[in-house]
């Protein structure tokens, strides 16, 4: 296990150095968030019926989403993509580390470090000035925290699975294009999932991406009462285990069959 922790450690340290980029990203997020708050306000102002979630809750969803934006399984790891393309992945396979676990550790670091670094400024500013509400109760806050940790694992398992798929597609271009849009939509980042039409709700309730952001947000705002949190943790864990199993299975198949590109 020490090998994996070492890799996790190194990559986290490396990613903490990207501070200037982080500042620009935070500014962009604040701007985007402000615009979206205004858009939601305008929509709710014209609404006479009651909605599944209140304006305050929607705004909270929005800011939580922006704070934890980096948790989303956004894209493939460029380095690994290049390795698979030019065949250097063979070097990775020669190491005394299991490939899946290696890539999972990398994915986890790539999610955890930027998120930890960037969530605080947006959370604080949004909480003080921009309409982010406090958790409904202490239990809700704790449930949110646990859910976010589980979301890290879920997201990492999705990313790793996508990385494994590169053994078959070689170039990541196709999936790289589609992934951000799918994850952003289905995790509730574009519009909070509760606001989607009623006929879509059954599908949205079961798809795995809701575990990345939608479930934590609902726990935070009390849309899901803290008493029921355990069931939703189970949901996140179940999907995580599924993706891990699928990823390992595919990696195993790939090891047996694949052809190394290049010299």
């Amino acid at each position, binding site marked *: 296990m020490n090998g994996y922790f070492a890799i996790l450690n190194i990559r986290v340290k490396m990613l903490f150095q990207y501070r*200037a*980029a982080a500042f*620009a*990203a935070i*500014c*962009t997020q604040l*701007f*985007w968030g402000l*615009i979206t708050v*205004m*858009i939601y*306000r*305008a*929509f*709710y*102002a*014209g*609404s006479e019926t009651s*909605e599944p979630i209140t304006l305050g809750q929607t705004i909270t969803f929005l800011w939580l989403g922006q704070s934890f934006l980096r948790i989303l399984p956004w894209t493939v790891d460029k380095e690994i993509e290049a390795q698979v393309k030019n065949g250097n992945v063979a070097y990775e396979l020669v190491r005394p580390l299991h490939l899946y676990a290696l890539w999972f550790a990398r994915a986890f670091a790539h999610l955890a470090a930027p998120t930890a670094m960037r969530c605080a400024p947006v959370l604080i500013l949004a909480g003080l000035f921009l309409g982010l509400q406090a958790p409904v109760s202490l239990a809700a806050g704790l449930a949110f925290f646990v859910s976010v940790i589980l979301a890290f694992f879920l997201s990492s398992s999705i990313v790793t699975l996508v990385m494994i798929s590169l053994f078959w597609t070689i170039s990541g*271009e*196709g999936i790289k*294009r*589609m992934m*951000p*849009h*799918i994850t*952003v*939509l289905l995790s509730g980042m*574009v*519009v909070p999932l509760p*606001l*989607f*039409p009623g006929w879509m709700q059954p599908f949205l309730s079961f798809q795995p991406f809701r575990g990345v952001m939608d479930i934590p947000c609902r726990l935070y705002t009390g849309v899901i009462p803290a008493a029921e949190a355990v069931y939703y943790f189970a949901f996140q864990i179940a999907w995580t285990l599924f993706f891990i199993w699928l990823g390992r299975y595919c990696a195993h198949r790939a090891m047996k069959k694949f052809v190394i590109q290049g010299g």
Partner: protein
Amino acid sequence: MLSTSYLLGTFIDIVGIWVLFDRFKMVKGWTLPEVGLVYGVIHMGFAIAEVFSRAFDQFDQMIKQGEFDRLLLRPLSPLFQVAVCEVQIMRIGRFVQGFLVLLWSANTLSFSLFSVHTAILAPSVLGTAALFYGLFVIQATLSFWTTESLELMNITTFGGLQVGQYPMSIYSKMLRLIFTVLIPISCVAYYPMATLLQQEAYPLWFALLFPLAGFLFLYLACKLWSLGVAHYRSTGN
């Protein structure tokens, strides 16, 4: 293939807007097809600008590597050279998406193709393209003075796109002011469409004047560029 996935990707962005209108029906008196007009114009304009301004995107690399010096040695305007350096057809996906939304909106609102509406839509799209092209030029011009902080300019380009795709009337006064006077995004998309739909009370021919703001902005951007070139000191190569 890439174009197709880009197109599909941008379609998913529309889903968000559709969801909101499906639930709320209207925003500040604008219905979905009406917003679709503004959306179509601004995305088509942005796409045109994107297709032709790719080189400005990567201009900071050109400066860093000292390649810009080569352009200065040639007997052609450096702005022109950078402008024609690269054309990225892939971005046409956004244009198609905007166009389809526009078609749907026009159809739903029962606009006919050969009418005063097209006469207003076309300059709006061109004005929008000019505006965003100007923003890309400014973004590149900043490379003359600073090597970073270009990401912050994205707030004006992509941020401007996100702001402009909704009717401006939903935003705060301050924001409206910035995006009308400083970066006239509302002039090129919102006001022409609002006048067309009589959401704003201007005479119809005014709608032809508004997009001129985009061209004026582009002109000023080019002037800024010339300023940058005049004071340019190479990093060596």
